[in-house]
């Protein structure tokens, strides 16, 4: 019985990997890159190495710029600079209601002279929205996260000798070596993988399982939003013009109130109206949890309307789990561990997918298995290639191109589609070295396009790109020799 249970779990593990592997690989890879999304954004703005400016000062300058240049927008959402992102980011709807996102110069508060790009935000949004319309991308990502939880738990059940396997690697033995690699990578960062998959599901939990909220609030979802964040007060525009108070004193007051957590975001609603509101959200200094405090001020008088400090136990648990996943708290060393563990997760998923095909290709594979094999090649080698070309598109597309940020993202999906199509129609033993070689060249190009490596972001990116490029080159060489 015990043996057959393990056999069943092994079957479930491989079937689940077959069904969810492709999307999970893309999510794990984009998630790993999102760890350094601020650094990627900096890399994508080589024209300006932002000076370190006091976050509150930079935020109020950004809001001044918005007051002069986007005064008719119904709302501005400004993200304060942090140690990782020494620039403010603003999001606001234009006259057609399309949201514009720009990083702003911390000294002038203006986006002028900075190229139009989503920067690292692309990987962050893709990680949980998959470039699909709301709510489908998020639902798929949430289900994929739970599938990963099941994949990890069944993987643990299959392995009785987790500790011994950690020290077992038998190279040059084909299938056995791949299984050993799959096990070592999976075991090495297992606590992280379990944490990141479950907390990933937690971040999208209210979308996936809205029923407890529906039951408690008797289907009054507005009440649930207000209750979740009591200081996120809102009111309609009055229709009478108004003037925004100077923002800096409000930021100072909020900063004192948050007691060292700093400021994450400032929302300004109806900025040119008499009923303007200024909402300040606490940051992540010295706290894992996100959104530990919120304050809302009257925008025309500067008077405090509402302040909320999070003390409710289960909500605190939620903001802690959420904070663990998004890692806004993380100092540099922790970020690197998140990044490496994330890449290890992508490698576990990738090696698992590869094991599946290796095992079946040894026998007489039928048509479906052949297609899966080629799709695996396309996804495993095509996804990093597509992500790498995003960096190159940032450097190669003309700076004056209209909708430049959109074209950068389109490049990713064009290259991805090409890579998968190529893998579908090319013999796998040729497609592997060719696509891997393409990855190696793309990584080399990324490292070189950061020249001269003047700051830590350019140097760090170059080192990572060269190491990944070396790994891709080695893999291309190995697969080419076998072909």
């Amino acid at each position, binding site marked *: 019985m015990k043996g057959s249970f393990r056999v069943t779990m092994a079957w479930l593990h491989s079937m689940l990997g077959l069904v969810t592997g492709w999307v999970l690989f893309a999510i794990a890879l984009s998630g790993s890159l999102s760890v350094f999304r601020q650094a990627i954004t900096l890399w994508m703005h080589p024209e300006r190495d932002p000076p370190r400016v006091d976050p509150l000062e930079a935020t109020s300058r950004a809001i001044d710029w918005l007051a002069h240049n986007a005064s008719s927008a119904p709302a501005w959402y400004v993200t304060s600079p942090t140690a990782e992102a020494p620039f403010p980011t603003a999001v606001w709807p234009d006259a057609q209601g399309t949201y514009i996102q720009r990083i702003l110069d911390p000294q002038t508060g203006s986006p002028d002279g900075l190229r139009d790009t989503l920067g690292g935000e692309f990987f962050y949004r893709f990680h949980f929205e998959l470039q699909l319309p709301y709510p489908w991308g998020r639902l798929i990502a949430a289900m994929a996260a739970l599938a990963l939880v099941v994949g990890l738990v069944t993987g643990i059940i299959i392995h009785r000798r987790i500790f011994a396997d950690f020290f077992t690697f038998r190279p040059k033995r084909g299938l056995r070596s791949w299984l050993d690699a799959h096990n070592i990578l999976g075991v090495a960062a297992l606590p992280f993988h379990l944490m990141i998959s479950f907390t990933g599901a937690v971040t999208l939990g209210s979308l996936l399982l809205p*029923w407890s909220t529906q039951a408690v609030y008797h289907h009054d979802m507005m009440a649930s939003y207000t209750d979740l964040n009591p200081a996120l007060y809102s009111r309609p525009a009055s229709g009478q013009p108004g003037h925004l108070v100077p923002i800096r004193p409000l930021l100072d007051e909020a900063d004192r109130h948050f007691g060292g957590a700093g400021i994450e975001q400032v929302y300004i609603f109806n900025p040119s109206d008499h009923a303007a509101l200024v909402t300040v959200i606490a940051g992540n200094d010295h706290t894992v949890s996100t959104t530990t405090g919120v304050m809302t001020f009257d925008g025309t008088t500067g008077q405090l309307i509402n302040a909320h400090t999070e003390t409710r136990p289960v909500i605190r648990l939620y903001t802690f789990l959420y904070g663990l996943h998004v890692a806004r708290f993380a100092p540099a060393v922790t970020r690197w561990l998140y990044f490496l563990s994330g890449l290890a997760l992508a490698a576990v998923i990738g090696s698992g997918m590869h094991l599946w095909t290796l095992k079946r290709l040894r026998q007489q594979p039928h048509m479906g298995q052949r297609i899966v094999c080629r799709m695996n090649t396309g996804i495993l080698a095509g996804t990093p290639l597509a992500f790498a070309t995003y960096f190159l598109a940032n450097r190669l597309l003309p700076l004056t191109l209209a909708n430049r940020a959109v074209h950068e993202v389109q490049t990713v999906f064009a290259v991805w589609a090409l890579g998968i199509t190529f893998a579908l129609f090319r013999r796998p033993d040729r497609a592997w070295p060719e696509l891997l070689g393409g990855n190696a060249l793309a990584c080399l190009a990324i490292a070189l396009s950061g020249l001269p490596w003047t700051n830590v972001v350019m140097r760090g990116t170059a080192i990572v790109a060269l190491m990944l490029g070396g790994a891709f080159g080695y893999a291309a060489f190995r697969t080419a020799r076998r072909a």
Partner: protein
Amino acid sequence: MVSAGMRRRALASPGKSVPPRRPRLNIALRTLVGLAGGYGVASLGGVALALWLPLSRADGAMAGILFGLLLWPTVFMAAFGVSGIWRLVMVVAGCMVSFTIIALTAGRGL
């Protein structure tokens, strides 16, 4: 030592145990129970916990979500781990009925 190695290899390589000698209908039913039944148990369990917990409304709702996120993967795995399919259906239905009773009789009330 050799035999232990052999046994381990057989167990530790997913896919080698194919075919699992399960008729397609059986697998389809288990998938259905794991996905739909699991979602039902997760939803009802979350609602029951949310209504039963003597905490603030926001805390209750959030506890329900977190509990549901633990329940769904558990039921999904059980859907393939429990040996008899009828036993599985009875257990999942039993969980759903129990959670519904708890939700209906809980202090906060639907």
